[in-house]
């Protein structure tokens, strides 16, 4: 790792799972997550020289979020291919996973996928990517107060969606 700059291989090997998990929670299905990760890694490659030593995963989360938002905007212009919440693709059980926890995870994932992107993105960045409000605000180019508001509203909407699913 010369000059502290991570190589593409290091990014893929050491942070690939993190990157894929964030992409999956944003997109809601494996096919779109795979696409997001590929595009993100291409951007990682082109942006490596701009990387400043610090939170590599924060930087990766920001890039994959930008890829996701770009794709959401693009698909809005072509609404037949909206991104996210395909119920048939949500969270295939992992081998050996506990049935109850798998079911709960599927419910939470489905609720997450049901959130409008403006709330889903900050919630995923906070609770999946473990980013601070300041990092999220920078990633989304919004004030911290907006991050606060969207995370809270997002969680309230999640709660409502989970209650509705349970009912």
């Amino acid at each position, binding site marked *: 790792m010369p000059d502290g700059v991570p190589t*593409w291989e290091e990014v893929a090997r050491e942070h690939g799972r993190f990157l894929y998990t964030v992409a999956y929670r944003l997109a809601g299905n494996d096919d779109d*997550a*795979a696409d997001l*990760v590929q595009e993100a*890694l*291409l951007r990682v490659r082109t942006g490596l020289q701009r990387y400043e030593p610090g939170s590599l995963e924060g930087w990766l989360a920001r890039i994959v979020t930008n890829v996701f*938002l770009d794709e959401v905007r693009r698909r809005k212009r072509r609404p037949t291919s909206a991104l996210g919440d395909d119920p048939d693709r949500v969270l295939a059980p992992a081998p050996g996973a506990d049935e109850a926890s798998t079911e709960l995870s599927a419910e939470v994932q489905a609720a997450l996928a049901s959130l*409008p992107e403006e709330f889903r993105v900050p919630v995923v960045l906070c609770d999946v990517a473990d980013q601070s409000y300041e990092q999220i605000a920078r990633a989304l*180019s919004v004030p911290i107060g907006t991050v606060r508001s969207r995370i809270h509203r997002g*969680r309230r909407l999640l709660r409502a969606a989970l209650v509705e699913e349970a009912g």
Partner: protein
Amino acid sequence: VSEHGLPEELISAYLDGEVDPKERAAVDARLAESAEWRAVLDEVRDVRAAVRALPSRDAPAGFWDELVAGDADDENIVPLHTRSRGGRGLRWAGVAAAAAAAAVIGIALVPAETRVQPAVSTFGEAHAVRSSVGDDAISTLAGATVATEVGR
């Protein structure tokens, strides 16, 4: 905003440790006097814990290997926004990634005779990070309908 002028969104910030000491004291005081706020706190805490408990997600088998190995034909190099939704497009990225890795770490992952069209550098530049700086990256999504179709 509650009748006491304290915004309810402080509850999430409180749980996330994203409040200053003055705000924390105000939330503590409000929680002590309001059953409604305590109920919201419990609900938000549960939801927050549920999302944080979601397991890490592994990429499909072979995803990373294919990405690194990339041995696609030139015509499979298709950027995300023009890719057919009917089939997976790992191979284009494999080529780009392999070439990128070779360029970055100096390892010849791509045989010398393999041509990448467009050139990786050109392709990379064309898809360089589209910075959101200066724009509110997600406010434009406000009011978006919830995605209901993947369209494959």
